[in-house]
């Protein structure tokens, strides 16, 4: 089981790195494909953490729906490559330095917190228990989230609709 953790986390980080910096291609489609791989490796990590339902949902929602949406938009816009690469050395350097600082803080915090001694529990996330919890303790957030999805749907329709005045202007 330990070797699986190392394989999956290494693959997750590698694919995540290739989403952000791909030395071979600047095409957004490649980034989207590596995002799919990242998400699939991550659901492998979820299985190792015994969150079976979330692993399935992760693949269904992210690899299924979200990435399709990304690809759809990329192809709708017909973006070929990033035409010119205006490399701003100063901004890149400052950004990398800030992120490295944040990474250092996060990792040292995790290392100093000594969570290992107390991590004895071994909880499983089966669909049944999650569903029971969702419809007893978390009914109100569940309903609010469904409302949020409705609002997002209406918002998308409104945003992607071309208004009539605009069509007349064109």
């Amino acid at each position: 089981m330990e070797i699986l953790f190392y394989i999956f986390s290494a693959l997750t980080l590698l694919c995540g790195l290739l989403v952000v910096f791909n030395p071979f291609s600047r095409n957004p489609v490649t980034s989207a494909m590596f995002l799919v791989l990242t998400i699939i490796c991550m659901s492998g990590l979820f299985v190792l953490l015994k969150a079976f339902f979330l692993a399935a949902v992760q693949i269904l929602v992210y690899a299924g729906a979200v990435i399709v949406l990304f690809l759809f938009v990329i192809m709708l816009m017909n973006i070929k490559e990033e035409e010119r690469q205006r490399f701003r050395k100063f901004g890149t350097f400052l950004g990398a330095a800030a992120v490295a600082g944040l990474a250092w803080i996060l990792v040292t915090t995790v290392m100093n917190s000594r969570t290992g001694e107390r991590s004895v529990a071994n909880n499983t996330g089966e669909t049944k228990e999650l569903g029971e919890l969702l419809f007893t303790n978390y009914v109100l957030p569940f309903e609010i989230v469904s409302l949020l999805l409705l609002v997002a749907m209406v918002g998308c329709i409104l945003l992607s609709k071309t208004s009539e005045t605009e069509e007349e202007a064109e």
Partner: protein
Amino acid sequence: MTHVGLEHYLVVSAALFCLGLLGVVIRRNLIVMYMSLELMLNAATLALVAFSHHQPPSPHGSPLDGQIMVFFIITVAAAEVAVGLALIVALYRKRQTTDVADLASMKL
């Protein structure tokens, strides 16, 4: 090989979060920046699932609370992606670009 505990997952999550942040800061393409945002959300998700797996039994709340929270995060992220991409498409219609350097003015 040492026993894989909570902190291993937290380090992976922190590294993934920093990768996403780096992408948002450095990349100039709006869509790739958005994908990096998704990476950051996923990193937070991984940390929550790891916490949920390692939570000792307690009278306050169920050990699955973290996973419920991840469920809501995934839902909200899906809604967010839909609205955000609609915004990007609307912006692209007006300006014919997704490079943030070309989107520096507030007037459409």
